[in-house]
């Protein structure tokens, strides 16, 4: 039997909960690429999050509505705004993770992320623009990110700035 992972239902439940709770977020990473039509396998959902206290409270409410897990309370505005701008939350199943980012290096903060809103199965989803994803992928060090950047550049005919 195949292991369960990030089933569509779970991914959509998370995005629906973000929409319902009015979480200020932007879908980035490979799931953001998938929405844009550049598809590869992944084990996580990467989201940029506005790290202010009110928004992180909405984020916790959204996640708690999907996963009955008290550890979600450990996600704090103080951490995201301070020394821990990258927080990974893995639900109890351990099948996938939700990777929360408040900033990426010194170049990208939430307020600087270009995004667009689309509706998928009735759920409003905020996804980074192709140009934004390309810039984020291009400027990180992972080989996978370099491959992703190349795929985005070719697919959307993007040019280096």
């Amino acid at each position: 039997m195949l292991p369960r992972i990030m089933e569509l239902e779970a991914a959509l439940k998370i995005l629906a909960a973000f929409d319902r709770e009015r979480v200020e977020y932007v879908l980035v990473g490979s799931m953001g690429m998938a929405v844009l039509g550049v598809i590869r396998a992944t084990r996580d959902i990467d989201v940029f999050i506005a790290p202010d206290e009110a928004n992180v409270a909405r984020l916790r409410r959204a996640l708690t509505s999907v996963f009955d897990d008290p550890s979600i309370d450990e996600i704090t505005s103080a951490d995201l705004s301070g020394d821990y701008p990258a927080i990974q939350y893995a639900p109890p199943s351990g099948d996938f993770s939700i990777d929360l980012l408040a900033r990426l290096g010194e170049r990208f903060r939430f307020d600087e992320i270009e995004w667009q809103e689309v509706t998928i199965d009735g759920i409003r989803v905020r996804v980074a623009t192709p140009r934004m994803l390309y810039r984020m992928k291009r400027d990180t060090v992972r080989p996978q990110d370099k491959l992703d950047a190349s795929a985005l550049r070719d697919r959307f005919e993007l040019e280096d700035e």
Partner: protein
Amino acid sequence: MPIRKFRSVEEMTPLPDRRPFDPENLRLAIAWSHAAMALHPVKRTPGVHKYRSYEDMKARDQRRSSGSSVSE
């Protein structure tokens, strides 16, 4: 998506570009992820994990992925 067969890797043509924002895109990504997980299962440690950078977080994922085929 139909199955396509080739006599060699060289003959394989890339998949056609998917239309941006097609709801099917997300389904395809998750189906591919499912297949990848079946071939190389890696469990995340449940809970909240904090990192000083995106790179630290992904490096940890990479070590987990290459260090174990089942779980931590």
